[in-house]
């Protein structure tokens, strides 16, 4: 079954047209030939003009078709037109390549653009329009807080594209229990518990939590990106990983508790990159949580993780 499926998928064949050099040469030759054609045309035209009138034009056409030189000129001209169409059509297109290997277009990573601000005063509308975020059970003050939290990562176009990939909203549900400020993410929904208590902590603590959780939503929407992280960045900076987790992450249980080191490190890298780009002590899960370990100067201490995240998420 699988073999059959694979065979059905292998239906594309590459057809590559030589690059810009041959195209340019053809173009240059075409121009030169066109110049020659123009000169010849002028000479024939002069001869015909001397005789004047419609009949003479017909006679001229007759001259063109009865004269072997005329046929050759016409043939070369047609051939050159075809050559130009074939070559330049291919060059300006996808070079006849295998369409299955062309990656999806995406904005390139780079420095942040303008930090969004909510000018209308309608915070729920701003969250929806600027970030594709909906908040359930949140007060206006809490929604303002969440807007301010996400203004930082959403200033990076690639982050915005990844977290909204596939359409639909990122839903933030504010819930309550007796376990402090914590959360978890399922698909496009982030569940945050005891947000009032979270607000009693430093702004950066809850900003870290929400951006970390948004990393899980990015994985859910873009699992190939997370696979690339695991293959190219995860567990590569020895000073930054402990038990295969990025060590700022507090729940490093070794996978035995069902918390995946690769998924959590991916989400943690997304939080640490944007929270700790300025150097200093990188540790925002540590408010009363003894299990998170600080990383000093994240960009230089964790260059592989930092650079991968900067290139592929921000």
């Amino acid at each position, binding site marked *: 079954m*699988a073999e059959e499926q694979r065979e059905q998928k292998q239906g594309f064949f590459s057809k590559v*047209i030589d690059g810009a050099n041959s195209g340019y040469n053809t173009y240059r030759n075409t121009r030169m030939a066109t110049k020659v054609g123009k000169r010849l045309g002028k000479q024939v035209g002069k001869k015909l003009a001397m005789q004047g009138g419609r009949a003479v034009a017909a006679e001229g056409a007759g001259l063109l078709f009865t004269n072997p030189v005329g*046929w050759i000129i016409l043939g070369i001209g047609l051939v050159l037109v075809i050559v130009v169409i074939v070559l330049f059509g291919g060059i300006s297109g996808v070079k006849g390549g295998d369409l299955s290997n062309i990656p999806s277009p995406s904005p390139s990573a780079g420095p942040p653009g303008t930090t969004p601000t909510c000018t209308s005063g309608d915070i729920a509308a701003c969250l929806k329009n600027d970030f594709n975020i909906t908040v359930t059970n949140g007060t206006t003050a809490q929604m303002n807080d969440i807007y301010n939290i996400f203004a930082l990562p959403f200033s990076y176009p690639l982050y915005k594209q990844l977290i909204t990939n596939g359409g639909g909203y990122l839903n933030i549900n504010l819930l309550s229990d007796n376990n402090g400020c914590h959360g978890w993410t399922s*698909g496009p929904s982030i569940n945050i518990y005891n947000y009032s208590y979270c607000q009693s902590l430093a702004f950066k*603590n809850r900003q870290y939590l929400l951006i970390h959780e948004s990393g899980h939503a990015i994985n859910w929407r873009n*699992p190939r990106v997370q696979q690339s992280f695991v293959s190219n960045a995860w567990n590569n900076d020895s000073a930054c990983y402990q038990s295969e987790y990025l060590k700022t992450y507090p*729940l490093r249980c070794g996978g035995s508790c069902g918390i995946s080191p690769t998924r959590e490190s991916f989400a943690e890298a997304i939080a640490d990159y944007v929270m700790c780009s300025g150097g200093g002590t990188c540790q925002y899960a540590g408010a009363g949580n003894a299990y998170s370990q600080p990383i000093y100067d994240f960009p230089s201490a964790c260059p592989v993780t930092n650079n991968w995240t900067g290139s592929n998420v921000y």
Partner: protein
Amino acid sequence: MSRKIVLLIIFLFFLVLILLVLSLPAQKQPPPAPFVSPTPIQIIPNPRKEQSSISTIIPGKTSDSDLQKIIGEPLSRTKDGSLTIFNYATSQKNFTDTVSLKQDIVYYTVENVFDDSTYGTTSDFVSKIGDSYTKLYDNAEGLYWYIYLNQGVGVETNGSQVLKIVRFSPQDLSFFLSGIGASLGISQNQIPPNEGVSPAP
């Protein structure tokens, strides 16, 4: 008149010849130079015989010795209770496909999927195998599995992309959940992790 026809034939011959010359090199040209990725190429030690040969293994039938003929030596072997797990390299560093054996017979296999072209999307998969799947959950992030218990195959998905394929002998749900499901962290209900920044006030 006959001269015109001769010239016309010569012209058409010339035209066809030119078009042939133009089309032939395009097919014979070597493939374009591969795109040079800024990410260094990962060297995979001991690559197995064929990347996709895991799909030819038949759980419940393929034996330990057959397995090594088909797929070669694993990168490593681990034990998980009564299971012996063979780990095979994939095209991606840090990902291994696994073949789990019970009493020297393949019990189940897990293949990682890194693109949408090998097996298609999840909807492609469902359109080929049917919708008689049981939806089960991964242990985090909202990923889930479509498990075809009677066909002995399942896919891990985010709803659109296929991320893993598990193959096993056909079995009922309770047997699957207590065996393969337990090993792979697959359950009937989603179990949320409890990530936090602060304990209770």
